């Protein structure tokens, strides 16, 4: 009887737990401050979800392979300064290039992908642990951000690239009906990644690589290729988030997205994806992202000071990882 109860309790897995928390949190904030449920606030939440969510999709892929990507925040900023810089319409811009919106997006994403590709190569070929490899890349990419920004805006070094562009405005501020464009982009990307992970052999291989790399090799899976692909795709997704951030502000800052990688990891871990790899889903990450977005906006609205917000986020992350360990124990027992 006791065991049955335990089992049924565990059946409420981490995803469901987060979903339940999410509902209660939403109700709680609404009761405390009715304007939390206003269309303005909901719009904010959806935008936050899109910004964090797209990058977190990428982070999910990386974490499923058993790796991590600490360079995500820097790649976001890099994608932003490249995209904004190539427009050539920045105030006090010094660069001679002036490309249309679509071309800047494409080039920014190619560069983002390249950073991810390099991450993957360093991890698979030089056999450097993902933590260290991407830590190095975090610094390198941030350095590149300053180099790019400095060559575009030749004023005070480290100053942001500020511009006007309809394409970016649509991406970062536009709406279709009542729904922010960026949220639509998020939903589309979410569906693509979901189908990729569940219905393609490459997607399934990501789980295998994270679960047991030796088994994966024995099953004929080209594990190095999978890892490189994963980091590349992840960085492209992160790059898209970077462009959305730029679009939202009409400005690409050199200090943008600093430390964001930790929020992405938090969203993934909250969603029940094992930080050891091999287990998890993007549905969990969607819930984790929604959780963070509601929490951020809610705490802002009820006027909790930002340093308390850090504290609360940290505690929640510990909770999420504990839940993961608890789940693992069940496996050992059976």
């Amino acid at each position, binding site marked *: 009887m006791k065991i049955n109860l335990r089992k049924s309790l565990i059946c409420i897995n981490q995803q469901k737990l987060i979903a339940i928390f999410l509902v209660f949190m939403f109700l709680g904030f609404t009761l405390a401050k009715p304007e939390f449920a206003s269309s303005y606030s909901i719009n904010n939440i959806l935008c936050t979800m899109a910004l964090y969510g797209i990058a977190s999709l990428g982070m999910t892929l990386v974490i499923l392979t058993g790796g991590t990507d600490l360079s995500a925040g820097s790649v976001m900023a890099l994608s932003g300064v490249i995209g904004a810089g190539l427009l050539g319409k920045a105030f006090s811009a010094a660069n001679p290039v002036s490309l249309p919106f679509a071309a800047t997006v494409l080039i920014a994403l190619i560069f983002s992908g390249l950073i991810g590709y390099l991450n993957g190569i360093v991890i698979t070929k030089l056999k450097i642990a993902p933590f260290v490899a991407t830590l190095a890349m975090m610094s390198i990419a941030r350095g590149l951000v300053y180099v790019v920004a400095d060559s575009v805006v030749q004023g005070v070094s480290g100053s942001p690239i500020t511009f006007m562009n309809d394409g970016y405005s649509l991406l970062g501020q536009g709406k279709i009906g009542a729904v922010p464009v960026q949220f639509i982009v998020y939903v589309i990307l979410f569906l693509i990644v979901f*189908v990729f992970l*569940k*219905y*393609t*052999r490459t997607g*399934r*291989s990501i*789980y*295998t690589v994270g*679960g*047991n790399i*030796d*088994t*994966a090799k*024995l*099953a*004929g*899976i080209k594990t190095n290729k999978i890892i490189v692909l994963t980091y590349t795709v992840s960085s492209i997704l992160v790059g898209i988030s970077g462009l959305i951030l730029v679009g939202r502000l009409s400005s690409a800052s050199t200090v943008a997205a600093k430390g964001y990688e930790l929020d992405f990891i938090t969203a993934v871990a909250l969603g029940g994806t*094992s930080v050891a790899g*091999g*287990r998890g889903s993007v549905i969990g990450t969607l819930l984790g992202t929604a959780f963070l977005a509601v929490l951020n906006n809610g705490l802002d609205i009820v006027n909790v000071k930002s340093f308390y917000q850090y504290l609360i986020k940290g505690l929640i992350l510990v909770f999420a990882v504990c839940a993961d360990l608890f789940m693992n124990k*069940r*496996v050992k027992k*059976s």
Partner: protein
Amino acid sequence: MNENIILRMNNISKSFPGVKALQKVNFEVKQGEVHALLGENGAGKSTLLKILAGAYTKDEGEIYINGKIIENMDPKTAEELGISIIYQEFSCLPYLSVAENIFLGRQPRKSNGLIDWKKCYEDSKKLLDRVGLKVDPKTLVADLKVAEQQMVEITKALSKNAHIIVMDEPTAPLTQREIDNLFLVIKDLKKQGVSIIYVSHRLVEIKEICNRITVLRDGCYIGETEVASVTVQDMIRMMVGRNLTDMFPRSNAEIGGKMLEVDHLSTADKLKDISFHVRRGEILGIAGLVGAGRTELARAVFGADPISEGTIRMNGEVIKINSPSDAISYRMGLVPEDRKRQGLILRMNVKDNTTLASLKSFIRLGKLNLFEEEKISLTYMNKLKVVTPGIFEKVNNLSGGNQQKVVLSKWLCANCSLLIIDEPTRGIDVGAKVEIYELMNELVRGGLGIIMISSEMPELMGVCDRILVMHEGTITGELMRDKFSEETIMAFAAGQHPETEEDKNVRR
């Protein structure tokens, strides 16, 4: 039986730098037979199988599958030819479903390139039926028992249309009932025409399930024969090359006074009112079924688990043991059942493992005396005849028997006087087993006391001076050497002869 020879390996040789791993070995498997490949660790079995699987390339010799010569064997070719290996350590992914594990990397796809999960589950179901495993293909492998995971591995092999399945020590992690079931499945596969190459140290099982055996020794082909025509003794002789009439050498040590006395010991969850003693120069066996509390008893005495009641005396003095480090200070040592995880630090070398429990004694002027450490390690390496290139070799690279010797070295180095050895010869091959027994005998001759926990009845009866039998956390019987019999021990172990109060008093 079909007399088709499905696999023939002729004059296979393979050398590694400095070692001739295989010299002109022949190996032949008929369709639909279970063929045992026998040999001690290091005899060349795994090298031969790795050549078959395409993981190694042979230096010399030919491989024929269905009479056709195969020139270049690589893992992919081997798989296409229907050769599948089930390794000792299963390779299932715990968090993926049964079906996905079966079709790992080969999931059926629809015409649009996406995975067809419906077909994947249906095909899995059909394959699982062939091995009689009744689980939903959507179940996570983590939720299966070990024996069921093994069936999933076999199913995986079948899904690749395997004609030759290699099973490496398949029964090691299984209970008797699960072994019976595995044998049913093997017999069934035989009927379906699948050939099985069976590697095991459990010779009795080989008598039961196999049709023929091929024996290797030191990389050489010794012979091939029908199982029906040989006894277990014959097999041992072929494997070790000498007649082991004395599998269990006797110690003939002088049995002295009581050293460890345990009175009314209980723990919170398992052990109830346990009393016994160990004498100097004695090997005390502890028998019992899995789950009887033998390992728990060892852990409690050694201070690894807390005691709720009872007293422990060492040489007549009551002692308090709250942690393993207390036990070590009373000169006790524990050789655990799970050698690789609890007995050794696999990534450290022989020297570091040897001195692990006695580092304090190597401290001179506040720092470790490395020279002394190396000297002592070398002494034990030679004394216990550990076969290794040197004391700086990682223990991970040693065979099971040699690893066990390193664990013993560790306790001898710590100047231990009472050793608790849990399953001393698990996963160790026949020749090395005898060496471990001889070592234990030598130790008791030197005045040590040994508590030996074992699930192997012949071993207990062969080596021990006295046997205690446990059942559900209590001691149900005690037998002196002249009263040893398998039937009595089994009866006690099954709890059929509850001990009377009088018996208990006698033991105290």
